[in-house]
């Protein structure tokens, strides 16, 4: 009797050490999680649920990530070009220390919305595998396109995807 009790407790601990598997990666066609995060001005928050109807480009970035730095001028470009047509760029910063992000934004000002998630809960929800990773989300909140990394040679292809999403957007 006693022995079986020990056996069960040992089994229990064995099973509890087997850590929980990650949720499946967010892919094309999946519904993007609804997140509300503070923005650069801190007083306002950006809520993905409130952006329904718009084409949302969610980008996860950090100050320490080189390709993210490359993507900023391009995202500024996209914002100026396509924001009037319904594109909303939400760049979610995942720096553990906020001042690092502020310093980055000082040298690389962003025209688009910048949100902050120092705890890293949002990238976990999206199951981000690389930095930067961007998600293009349609008006219904569904993922249209996922892009990992950023190179200058990606610019044209990404813009085409955005362009297509904007033309197909339900008015």
């Amino acid at each position, binding site marked *: 009797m006693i022995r079986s009790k020990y056996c069960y407790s040992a089994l229990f601990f064995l099973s*509890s050490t*087997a850590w929980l598997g990650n949720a499946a990666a967010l892919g094309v066609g999946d519904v993007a999680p609804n997140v509300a995060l503070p923005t650069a001005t801190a007083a306002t928050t950006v809520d993905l649920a409130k952006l329904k109807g718009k084409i949302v480009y969610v980008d996860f970035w950090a100050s320490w990530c080189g390709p993210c730095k490359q993507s900023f001028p391009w995202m500024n470009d996209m914002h100026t070009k396509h924001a009037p047509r319904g594109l909303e760029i939400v760049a979610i910063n995942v720096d553990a220390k906020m001042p690092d992000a502020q310093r980055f934004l000082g040298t690389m000002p962003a025209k688009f919305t910048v949100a902050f998630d120092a705890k*890293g809960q949002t990238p976990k929800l999206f199951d*981000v595998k*690389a930095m930067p990773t961007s998600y293009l989300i349609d008006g219904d909140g569904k993922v249209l396109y996922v892009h990992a990394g950023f190179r200058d040679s990606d610019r044209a292809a990404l813009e085409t995807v955005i362009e297509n999403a904007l033309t197909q957007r339900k008015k």
Partner: protein
Amino acid sequence: MNFRYRSIPLALLAVGALSALFSLGGCAMQPPQAWEKGDLARKEMTMESDPLDQAFTQHVYFSKESASGGYGAGGGGCGCN
């Protein structure tokens, strides 16, 4: 009596086994996620943080040992530099 005599080392065994399992739990720690690599991306975290020194070392490896690359994403292995 026999039962009582055996139950003590069994309890000790159980404690030992449990503590071993707990320490095993430490091995199951998740590697840093993509967004948690801020500290790993710091210059101090590279194998050689001084670019001049690294270039010198690479030069020695290349000229004496005909070996190059393997210190980053690009280069090395194909002999084409």
